[in-house]
């Protein structure tokens, strides 16, 4: 393999495809989809401009606290529905059931998970003001979580879902681009001119790298626009998990793309016309689509045994492992093992793909039989 030749082929694929109008349109559409979905998400989450809360008051200072809170609510731009609760234990149950947003009971605030940041100052004010006669013994307020939940679990599921869709659409689009490119060179017969100056392996390597680089570029653009718009509109909290997810998607895209692209190139090399290519790559499309749909089922139940198992097995791991972002309790070794296994499988498929490609790419006409593609080398 000639490194300079690989570089030239890579550059050609990158530049020629990059300035193709179809590519620009594709990127434009995907960016538009990201922007629109972020916008919709932010509109949905900001719909209630005046938040309303239902709060129960119990304990010795209940009446005073209720009055102060009711008076303070309009100032804090909150719609407050308050009530007196005589049975503190029953009140806590109401909180758990979601019928009350909070129960204030003698310096303690009972909530399911967390006090809404808009409500908290009002309750604190009521707590303190109700103790005014006893200025010396002012008690602070403590929050009691009755049903704490993972603070980001919703966001994590969303991230896993988006990661899944991006991985799938990027991978299938760019693998098909590789297949189309391989067949294009056969159909136009430019392959013969090319192979008089570069080896089939250099050509294939350059093609996969060049198209893959374009795929990564599009992925980066989509992520940047999505994250930028998401954090600007407040639809997305930029946590460490978000960045982890971005890293995971990029890593799996690279590994998965190399794996599938080699397979697509090998299959495409056996046919001579684009129409034949469509049906030839059908089994490979399935090999991407089945784990993709399995991944949707997995997002709802990311810790199920079958998800854990598939998330390790190549090539399913490409689309199933990222789902475990949503689970959050993957052991450290799981992604490492998944990537390791996938890397081994990728090396295998690259070697096999290159062999089939090399044996098939100069055989024109009807589809090259698999036996010939595998055994009958140019050096036969």
């Amino acid at each position, binding site marked *: 393999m*000639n490194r*300079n*030749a690989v570089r*030239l*082929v890579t550059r*050609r694929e990158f530049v*020629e495809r990059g300035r*193709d109008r179809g590519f620009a349109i594709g990127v434009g559409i995907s960016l538009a989809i990201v922007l629109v979905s972020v916008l919709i998400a932010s509109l949905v989450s900001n719909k209630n401009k005046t938040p309303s809360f239902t709060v129960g008051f119990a304990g010795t200072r209940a009446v005073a606290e209720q009055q102060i809170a009711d008076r303070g609510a309009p100032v804090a731009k909150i719609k407050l529905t308050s009530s007196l609760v005589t049975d503190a234990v029953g009140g806590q149950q109401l909180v758990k059931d979601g019928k009350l947003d909070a129960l204030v009971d003698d310096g303690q605030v009972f909530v399911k998970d967390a006090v809404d940041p808009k409500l908290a100052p009002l309750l604190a004010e009521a707590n303190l003001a109700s103790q005014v006669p006893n200025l010396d013994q002012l008690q602070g307020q403590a929050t009691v979580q009755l049903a704490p939940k993972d603070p980001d679990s919703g966001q994590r599921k969303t991230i896993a879902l988006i990661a899944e869709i991006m991985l799938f659409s990027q991978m299938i689009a760019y693998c098909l681009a590789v297949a189309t490119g391989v067949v*294009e*060179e056969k159909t*136009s*017969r*430019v*392959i*013969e*001119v*090319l*192979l*008089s*100056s*570069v*080896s089939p392996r250099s050509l294939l390597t350059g093609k996969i790298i060049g198209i893959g680089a374009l795929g990564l570029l599009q992925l980066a653009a989509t992520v940047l626009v999505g994250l930028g718009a998401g954090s600007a509109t407040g639809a997305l909290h930029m946590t460490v998990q978000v960045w982890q997810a971005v890293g995971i998607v990029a890593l799996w895209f690279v590994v998965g793309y190399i794996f599938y692209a080699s397979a697509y190139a090998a299959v495409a090399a056996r046919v001579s016309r684009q129409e034949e290519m469509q049906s030839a790559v059908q089994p490979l499309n399935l090999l991407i689509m089945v784990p993709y749909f399995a991944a949707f089922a997995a997002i709802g139940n990311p810790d199920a045994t079958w998800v854990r198992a598939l998330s390790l097995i190549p090539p399913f791991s490409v689309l199933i492992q990222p789902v475990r972002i949503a689970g959050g309790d993957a052991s450290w070794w799981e992604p490492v093992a998944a990537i390791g296994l996938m890397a081994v499988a990728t090396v295998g498929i690259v070697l096999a793909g290159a062999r089939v490609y090399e044996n098939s790419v*100069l*055989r*024109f*006409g*009807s589809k090259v039989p698999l036996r010939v593609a595998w055994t009958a*080398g*140019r*050096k*036969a």
Partner: protein
Amino acid sequence: MLELEGLRKRYGDRVALDGVTFTVRPGELYGFVGTNGAGKTTTMRITLGVLEPDAGTVRYQGKPVDSATRRTFGYMPEERGLYPKMRVGDQLRYLAELHGLSRGDADKAATYWMERLSVIERAGDRVEALSLGNQQRVQLAAALVHHPAVLVLDEPFSGLDPVGVDNLAEVLRERAAEGVPVVFSSHQLELVERLCDSIGIIYRGRMVATGTVDELRASRAERVLRVGTDVAAGWADRVPGVVSADYGKSTTLVLAADADDQAVLDAARALGPVREFTPLRASLAELFREAVADHDGDEDGSNQDAADPRGADA
């Protein structure tokens, strides 16, 4: 010097090449002729390393060619091929760089050949937007753009108009004059005869004749004479050395290889006045037909399409 020695290639049970051997000297224009499926394309593909032979070697300047050497060769395949959506100039620059030219040199060479082959004003157009004739010119430019040390062209003249033919012939002569061995195949035998220093005739995967046209003529078994005389038909039937005679306005005689043409002249003059006495030079087309006929049927049953692995288009 480009030497092909003992090239053999089989596709399954079909024998495509059965020991092809010939030499193209520096500065020589070598015409490679043969029937369809005789093995021309297979030979050229092997020369360029696009195909691996089962046996035999290709040498350049005495050394077996490797991929680095082959990158200095220029090739125009029988099936024309360029990226249809790539711009003409970009395409030529890309191919020049693939053959090892620097970016700057590739740019200069591409411009030179686009000017030389009159496609410079289409430099920014996609190849698919060009007429077939212009695509052919770009294809030629692609074979020439890296100053090849050896030129191998498969049917370069097919599809060119007479101006294009002259233009290409001039370019090939010029390359040869610079010391480049040039091999091209063609079915236009008059053109080959006019242009080439040496000729190789391939038939069913074997070289059945090689040499200059004169050498090929000298090696033929029979000679043909035209004799202008008014003597009655049948006059030459019993003249020694005459194999056959055709009596028309003038007489056309086929002589055996060892016949004495002066004896024939004497015999004719003895019968009457002789207005014309011309040895007829066989055309390449005749030499070709004879060479092929001589070797017809001496074969192992390999079929006519043996040279073509593609099956569909023989």
